[in-house]
């Protein structure tokens, strides 16, 4: 304790990734990635397949080595440490449970590797199995378990080691949709209760929004945008983030005084866009629909298609091929003309210029 106080620089206790690059053959899997994950934070790496998110996770786990860049965890550099020397544990996508060991032995594996005394192992393993509702499964083998149970065993096996950082590599991809939604919420609750640092890799935007304290959107080996889910969702930086997180309407336009000119008329904006020709975005649920012409940014449009989504309706309208999401059940048949309001405060100016 005394030694810690003597140190002049404050040590970052979380995980820091600095300028990581990784190349496989001619493919740049990671291109100068830097991130900071706070201790006790639920951080999500979100992106389509091939964006480098799993490679980054594997580099943090020590299963791959970065070509360049550095990684710090708990104030210590771990860049060149092998996986077995890192206080980091992984929940694998395939769960990777040892088929020749019982569930109990699977969970005890990490403690046995580190030569914990037998009674300590028993205490810790039993506690984790109880916590994840697996007490009755202890003496079974992995092929006797359901998908959700296997996933919880993988989680228990990693958590029992009390790692500095827990890595989750698309842990819900093998579960069916209903169970997945349940597990997402459970995982979030578990993380809050334990106060451990979780890093989740996923391509599922809904999962990222449900689970994370903060998330990073990745594309082609780069981090495009980092922030808390609400902020990233409300203020996507570019068309990629806007499309990947939720179904945004992307509108090509040209800058004119006071706003932009689109294919279907003038739209006034709150601030001036940084480009001459570019794009603005608006979420389908932020477009208001009505019978009367609104004061500002009103568009007369015709309904072309209607999609029922249970809790809401999606309407497709022309001109502009706009999608509008409405929760109120008012049957609007295709062919009808309505007024749309694209309020200036709801329009997001995207960074990317027209190509």
């Amino acid at each position, binding site marked *: 304790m005394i030694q810690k106080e003597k140190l002049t620089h404050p040590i970052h206790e979380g995980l820091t990734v600095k300028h990581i690059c990784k190349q496989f053959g001619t493919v740049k899997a990671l291109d100068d990635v830097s991130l900071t994950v706070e201790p006790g934070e639920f951080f999500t790496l979100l992106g389509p397949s091939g964006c480098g998110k799993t490679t980054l996770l594997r580099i943090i786990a020590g299963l791959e080595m970065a070509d360049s860049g550095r990684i710090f965890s708990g104030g210590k550099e771990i860049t060149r440490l092998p*996986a077995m020397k890192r206080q980091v544990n992984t929940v694998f996508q395939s769960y990777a449970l*040892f088929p020749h060991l019982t569930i109990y032995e699977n969970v005890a594996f990490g403690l046995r*590797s580190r030569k914990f005394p037998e009674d300590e192992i028993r205490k810790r393993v039993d506690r984790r199995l109880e916590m994840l509702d697996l007490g009755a499964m202890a003496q079974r083998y992995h092929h006797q378990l359901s998908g959700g149970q296997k996933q919880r065993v993988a989680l228990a096996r990693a958590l029992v080691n009390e790692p500095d950082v827990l890595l989750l590599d698309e842990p819900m991809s093998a579960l069916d949709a209903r169970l997945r939604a349940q597990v997402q919420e459970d995982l979030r609750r578990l993380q809050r209760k334990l106060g451990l640092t979780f890093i989740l890799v996923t391509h599922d935007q809904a999962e990222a929004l449900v689970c994370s304290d903060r998330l990073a959107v990745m594309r082609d080996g780069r981090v495009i945008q980092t922030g808390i889910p609400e902020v990233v969702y409300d203020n996507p930086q570019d068309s990629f983030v806007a499309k990947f997180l939720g179904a945004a309407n992307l509108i090509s336009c040209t800058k004119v005084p006071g706003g932009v000119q689109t294919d279907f008329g003038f739209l006034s904006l709150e601030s001036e866009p940084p480009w001459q020709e570019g794009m603005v975005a608006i979420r389908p649920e932020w477009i208001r629909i009505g019978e009367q012409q609104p004061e500002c940014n009103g568009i007369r449009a015709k309904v072309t298609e209607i999609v029922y989504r249970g809790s809401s309706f999606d309407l497709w309208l022309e001109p502009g091929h706009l999608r509008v999401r409405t929760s109120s059940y008012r049957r609007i048949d295709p062919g009808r003309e309505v007024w749309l309001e694209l309020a200036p405060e709801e329009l997001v100016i995207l960074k990317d210029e027209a190509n």
Partner: protein
Amino acid sequence: MKRTESLITWYGELTTRRHLLKRGGLFLVPGLLWLMLFLVLPSLVLVVVSFVTRGAYGELEWVFTIENYKRLAGFTLFGWTADYLLILWRSIVVAMVTTLISVVLSYPLCFFIAARSERNRYMWLTLVMIPFWTNMVIRAYAWFFILSPEMPFAKLAALLGCIPDGAPLYPNAFAVYLGMISMFIPFVTLPLYAGVERLDWSLVEAAQDLYASRIRVFTQAILPQTMPGLSVGIIFTFFPAMGMFVVPDLLGGAKYMLVGNLIQQQFGTSRDWPFGAAVSMGLMVLTMIGLQIYRRKGKEIQVV
């Protein structure tokens, strides 16, 4: 109308997998007959012969006795000797060491081949198999050539003072192991390779992630996955190696006799068929015991 319908159902029933499997039993008959005629019957003859007496000129005298087995156990006219038991014991040791070294050499070889590109893998596997297609006697003679005094290996050994100057590196135990191991490596490598190629690397990574040492990664993540192939390799090596006689005969010389040579000698130069049959029975019993032990152990290891 009703008749045709039932006929159709009956026909459909005939082509189900269950029915075909049941009927498949008939096709076993020729194979079974072959085995009865050329394996089971001769073995029974061998059992009988092992209990009769050798005549003065090597013919069989139909006087039943257990003398042959007593002789194998070491009881002679001049008291007890461990000669034959020692030969049996030496055969077991040679087979065990051969198997162990073959396994130790095969693992890295399999990983090496599995890491090649798909096209090169078949080339490497073919290279492993080529010696396997060459006649065993020719291969043994090839070792004569390699171990001859003119070759660098013998010269090096002479330089180090292991053998006298100008002497070959055979016949001795070392030459026997060289010959045996080179002969049996493909029997381990091929079945083991099948397991190594399909290895689920995520288990290896999980073990590493869970702080396992290299040894623990091998015993917990690699060994259980490659166990089926390894078992086949061990069975294909250990038991044939125990009865091997060409290699020890050529490379081991008279001083390094194994049970295979002993049997061959009894049926050949010594013209003592009953004793040869008794030794054969001894080898067969050892093999059976070995297989039983192996099956028990195997069941313990492969819980799943």
